[in-house]
């Protein structure tokens, strides 16, 4: 079968359905063919970090100019003297100090009072909505990143286009567009300790699947073997971070290092996704030091190392943190915080319109709160995601990425430089 991508895209797939062929299958079969020989290294890249467990946005991006913040948090507020001031009203948690440099060179922005229009305080539901991109609608089968990949298949010429770091594909990447879950870059491919034996087995399976005809089994296995080859050439075992970038110990540092590797290997990565957990601070959350501080220090160091490692390459990379909701304004009886509503996110990278706290700040006064207790949501997370997809990755059909919602440029925060 020799369907070129161009022909398929032109015909829109509809004509082919009448032949009784599944358009999805054809699309994927078609994209398996005719790959560009040179992979552009100037392709925009998005890295998403999901802070699972609901990060306390108020202690991450501290509204130190609000008296209510200190009144409500006698034990866990970050003292103004410790806050790394950003604009006189907001400041970074001291553990995020390594990021101040990025704020100063305008490649780091914070987005405050962002969240879901759905009021749920269940981690599970809220994470689900943030990943499906359809708050309030549970039955959405795929994730918004996957839907972006589905509608914008022009770029689907590499198995590494959308990669989740972890043992399983997360909800945000679930769906019909091909995406990879990689637990460990160095162990990707067939697991045979000896290289010669591994190459031989790889070739054997390659041959087996070459005979599988034209179906999805054949095209997907082709993609898989290509991926193995590409990684082999990139040789991830030999990787050394550039510019003395020092990733912190632990899973997050390792993951960001591998994402940097994959970006520099020029294998066509467009979207990377990773989790970092430990944000559900109900008990003894701590202030300038303590539980949350430990997690934020790891995050700050890892992001700073990633930025340093990528150097010039950051000019077309955006890193976005996200979390399912924020936490209560008032500290609880256990010196912690409970499930709240709006939270804060960070965006960094060359394309980011940095040095600013974006979004309308609703204030912490009683009458300004959501349900009398939480930071109100003034930015629907879909507006930020949509802006990044449109203005950074160049998405054109946002309606299909966020069904039931019409993203509008009028609501974009200006997070991406134009």
């Amino acid at each position, binding site marked *: 079968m020799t369907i070129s991508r161009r022909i398929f895209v032109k015909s829109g797939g509809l004509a082919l359905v009448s032949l009784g062929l599944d358009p999805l299958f054809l699309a994927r079969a078609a994209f398996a063919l005719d790959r560009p020989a040179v992979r552009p290294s100037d392709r925009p890249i998005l890295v998403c970090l999901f802070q699972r467990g609901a990060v306390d946005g108020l202690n991450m991006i501290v509204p130190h100019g609000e008296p209510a913040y200190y009144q409500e948090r006698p034990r866990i507020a970050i003292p103004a003297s410790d806050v790394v001031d950003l604009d006189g009203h907001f400041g970074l948690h001291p553990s995020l100090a390594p990021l101040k440099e990025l704020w100063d060179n305008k490649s780091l922005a914070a987005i405050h009072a962002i969240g879901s229009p759905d009021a749920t305080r269940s981690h599970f539901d809220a994470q689900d909505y943030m990943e499906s991109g359809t708050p309030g609608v549970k*039955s959405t089968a795929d994730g918004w990143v996957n839907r972006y990949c589905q509608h914008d298949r022009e770029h689907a010429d590499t198995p590494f286009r959308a990669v989740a770091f972890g043992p399983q594909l997360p909800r945000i990447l*679930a769906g019909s567009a091909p995406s990879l879950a990689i637990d460990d870059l160095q162990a990707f491919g067939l697991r045979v300790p000896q290289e010669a034996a591994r190459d031989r087995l790889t070739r054997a399976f390659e041959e087996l699947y070459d005979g599988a005809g034209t179906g999805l089994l054949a095209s997907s296995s082709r993609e898989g073997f290509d991926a193995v080859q590409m990684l082999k050439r990139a040789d991830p075992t030999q990787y050394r971070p550039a510019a003395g970038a020092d990733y912190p110990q632990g899973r997050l540092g390792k993951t960001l290092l591998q994402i940097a590797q994959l970006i520099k290997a020029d294998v066509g990565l467009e979207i990377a996704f990773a989790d970092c957990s430990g944000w559900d601070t109900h008990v003894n959350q701590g202030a300038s030091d303590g539980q949350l501080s430990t997690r934020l220090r790891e995050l700050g160091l890892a992001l700073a190392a990633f930025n340093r490692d990528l150097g010039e390459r950051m000019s077309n990379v955006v890193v976005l943190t996200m979390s399912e909701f924020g936490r209560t304004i008032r500290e609880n009886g256990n010196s912690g915080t409970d499930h709240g509503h709006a939270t804060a996110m960070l965006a960094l990278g060359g394309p980011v319109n940095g040095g600013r706290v974006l979004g309308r700040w609703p204030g912490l006064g009683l009458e300004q709160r959501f349900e009398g207790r939480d930071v109100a949501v003034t930015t629907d997370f879909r507006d930020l995601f949509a802006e990044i997809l449109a203005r950074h990755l160049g998405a054109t059909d946002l309606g299909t990425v966020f069904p039931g919602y019409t993203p509008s440029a009028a609501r974009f925060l200006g997070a991406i430089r134009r």
Partner: protein
Amino acid sequence: MPLPLLATLCLLTSQAPAGSLTARDSAFHALNRLAYGARPGEADSVARSGVMKWIERQLDADHVSDSHLAERERDFTILEHDRADLAGRYRSAIRERRLMQREAAAHGDSMRLPAAGPMRELRELGGQLQQLAIVRATLSERQLREVMVDFWSNHFNVFVGKGADRFLLPSYIEETIRPRALGRFEDLLIATAQSPAMLFYLDNAQSVAPGSVPPFPLAALRRGGQGVRTLPKGINENYARELLELHTLGVDGGYTQQDIIAVARIFTGWSIQPPDRGAGFVFRDWAHDRGTKHVFGLTFRDDGKDEGIRLLAFLANQHATMHHVSAKLCARFVADEPPDGCIDAAVAAWQKTRGDIRTVLRAIFTSPDFWAPQAFGSKVKTPLEFVVSSLRATGTEPDDTPRLAQLVARLGEPLFQQPAPTGYAETEAHWVNSGALLARMNAAMMLAKDCASIPTIDDHSRLVDVIDEQLLGGTMSAHTRTVILNQLTDITDPEQARIMAVGLALGGPDFQRQ
């Protein structure tokens, strides 16, 4: 000499039979679809005794003896704990976690804590649930019932990782799904609606009539509501929406947002007892919306819990429901895009019997679409089907460690861990991607090492013949055969040759199909 399919089918169904398929091909096809694949020699033995006879026996699962499985089930202590017991363990585990968090925070440690005592116990019990599912799928003689348990567990999906569902899921599988897997759809639907696991998963447990107030102190409710920190304030539409969209009518079932709200009002008050009182189903009169609801041409007037029961019985036998569920069954048993013929046959059987699942299945298994040559080998196995069919083909007795469940999870289908209420997909497009295929090849090489059904044979050609017979029911393609033989040419150690050949056969394209 096996009888041609023609004769078998003509005898039993008087329908036009298919081309040049042998009785063994038909038996292998039936074993792939109604069961988790053929065990060594099973395709031949089913063909000898008659494939339709075997299908009838599978439909009549209660009369199939299953003593080996019964023996193995005794290893799984989770079956000895009822819901109340697990609820108690869950509460101890939560208490333990809070205590440890408090201590760790006091010492300024990070939150990664080693599990001990109740928490570890609960986690181990949770792991048993997945492993038990694999043991049953592999060993049960009532294969069709196991296949249907998996089907309904996905149709009525509950995510084990959501709060209280960690301890509610075992009784959901054991008491709600398993006994009704081959019963009547209406009974199954009502049982899932009343199951604490579903009530928690889709939030109906917190759905109350707006303005309703519990007749007991708020503190008591707070104590009982694990993880619920605020009082429910009104109706929650989640269950109502998924009931219509996923469980019954289907997304194109012709209902409106107003219908969803009316259905949600009907189910207000369907809730769960606090964990210290057993976490069973309870109808809370005070939370029920007593107003009159009009939906689907029916009127519900202050009739308490019976409103919901009446609505479920109505929905279970709507044409849209019959069509939606029948199409899903046909996607499972016939083809990813099932032909209309088998769906219509299933719907007709449903109408005739008010949703007797056996009769509906029989209609599918006797439809020409099921036996059409293009249906044979047309479906790609799900990760669960791939692993379990490998175990069966290689004659591997699954152990009770979490190893195999972890393997199924690595291949993308962690059992009972699908967060979306859609359950896991049935179609090729969702399971076949480059990473998943590489993972299957790795799994195949691992499983090949334990293969008990293939002896070491010096003659490579003979070895590949036996593998074709035992693992692939004689359906190995000429290409696969050539590639495997080429790979063996320079391997002199017969044990190595065996592992290589079995691994390639299991990891190759032929075995991914069913």
